[in-house]
């Protein structure tokens, strides 16, 4: 396998630090107390490595994540922007993005975000009885007030904000309250993640037997509110599912982002790197060893692509995709479940359905199809 057989790079996840200043109960980051930081020389090496790898064949997103990115000083990102100019002088190739818990956002950050045209995703789980029960500081205090201050600050600086809300079993009773919450705080773009079983978070409140039906009812009701609002709220799950319903059906040969090798490249603050699901960074298994396949300071992409470790991983993931193709009626829309979820839930990549599949793929597709058909019947 050569660089031409993998990628192209679509998402570069860089972990400037594994540290997070808060301690959410469902967090999948195994090392979030570690205050290590990526140095600027190492960051420069990472950019050079990426651009020398042959993976960059189209515009891609650079996501600062896998720890709270705003724990770093703003000057780090000013320097990063300077380094990026060497590879992307006119700024058309790379879109930078922060995925942040929002608690540290202030005017200085907003000015930096505007200066470098960085997209911002803020994690917020809704009203206090939902958000503060899960997204807490290490001393157990809720974080909602600080997040809302951050969102207000983004609005004051005319920075568009997309929020990600993690849905737990409890959230499924509150679609109207979540809708009101987004409207009240000027949030126009929403993405729902489900509470997944990943890394050190080894269980989920969504494992109950009635959850699939509750999730379907939740999403259906939320979409009814969001799509009829003026202007409609943008709901990522609806957009993605509608996109895949209207797109050409997938086959095992068309890998989706998370299962296509090196379409995602995850670089940790020490220079180690992995591919496939970002949640695999910093995790190891008895069969595959550490999912970090190499280090940008010592290993080339070519050396990784011919390594037995990568080849075994790729073979197992390919087997899992084939199994999804054989067994799942949603395959043509989905292309196979995310490898990370399969590994964390089923213990192997050579497996099929996960909690994520049942809720985030199957229910979202079913509900979206219902809404599209209903809309069509009205016209």
């Amino acid at each position, binding site marked *: 396998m050569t660089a031409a057989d993998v990628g192209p790079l679509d998402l570069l996840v860089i972990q400037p630090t594994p540290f997070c200043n808060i301690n959410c109960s469902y967090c999948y980051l195994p090392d979030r107390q570690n205050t290590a930081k990526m140095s600027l020389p190492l960051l420069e090496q990472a950019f050079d490595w990426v651009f020398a790898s042959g993976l960059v064949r189209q515009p891609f997103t650079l996501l600062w994540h896998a720890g709270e990115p705003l724990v770093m000083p703003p000057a780090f990102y000013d320097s990063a922007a300077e380094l990026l100019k060497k590879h992307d002088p006119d700024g058309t190739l790379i879109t930078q993005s922060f995925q942040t818990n929002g608690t540290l956002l202030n005017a200085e950050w907003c000015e930096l975000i505007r200066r470098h045209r960085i997209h911002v995703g803020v994690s917020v789980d809704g*009203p206090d*009885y939902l958000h503060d029960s899960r997204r807490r500081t290490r001393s157990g205090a809720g974080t909602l007030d600080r997040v809302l201050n951050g969102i207000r600050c983004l609005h004051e600086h005319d920075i568009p904000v997309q929020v990600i809300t993690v849905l737990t079993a409890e959230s499924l*009773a*509150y*679609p*109207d*309250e979540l*809708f*009101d919450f987004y*409207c*009240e705080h000027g949030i126009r773009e929403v993405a729902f993640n489900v509470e997944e079983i990943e890394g050190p978070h080894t269980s989920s409140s969504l494992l109950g037997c009635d959850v699939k039906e509750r999730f379907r*009812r939740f999403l259906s*009701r939320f979409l009814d*509110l969001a799509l009829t609002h003026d202007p409609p709220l943008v709901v990522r799950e609806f957009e993605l599912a509608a996109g895949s319903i209207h797109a050409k059906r997938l086959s095992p040969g068309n890998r989706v982002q998370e299962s296509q090798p090196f379409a995602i490249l995850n670089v940790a603050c020490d220079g180690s790197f992995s591919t496939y699901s970002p949640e695999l960074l910093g995790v190891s298994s008895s069969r595959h060893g550490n999912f970090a396949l190499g280090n940008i300071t010592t290993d080339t992409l070519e050396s990784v692509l011919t390594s037995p470790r990568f080849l075994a991983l790729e073979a197992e993931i390919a087997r899992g995709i084939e199994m999804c193709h054989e067994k799942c009626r949603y395959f043509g829309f989905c292309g196979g479940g995310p490898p990370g979820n399969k590994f964390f839930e089923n213990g192997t990549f050579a497996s099929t359905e996960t909690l994520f599949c049942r809720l985030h793929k199957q229910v979202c597709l079913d509900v979206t199809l219902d809404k599209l058909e209903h809309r069509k019947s009205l016209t």
Partner: protein
Amino acid sequence: MSAPLPAVAVAPNFQLVDPEGGRVLVPDGAGWRPLTEPFARTGEPALLFSLPAHLRSLFFTVLQDPELKGFDGFASKVGRFLAFKELTPPTRAAFELVLHAAEGKLDSRDLWAVVNLGDREVFAELPGLRVRLDVCEGLQLPGELAVSVVPPQADATEPDVLLLIRRPPV
């Protein structure tokens, strides 16, 4: 411990800012005081709930029309919301909009729930206690429980605005 009082609880799937303990009043001489001591509860509980802000906004839109043409649509949305919350109104329930003035009496026959749609708190009176309903909050009543809504003070400039949901007549 004094005589048992009707049970009051927050309905499942709802979150109220002030849970049931902080909003129950008991007689105190000529007036009423917050119930702070433990008390015995009896019967199926009356359930506190609240309507979401988007339904209240819709209600204000309905009020713009002097003929209240949008009221049936609003009532239907309230019904669907409550059904989602597993607090489903009875089949063929009647939804009534009532302006409750200081001198007015409220017909509480077949009352399944009362919702405060005004802009100040109101009090639902059950045998032996009063329950405060903040703006957009409601109280669902078990079948056997008699209830009335305390009229606003005589010097109030506006009547209470109530949504009554009634069981269909037997």
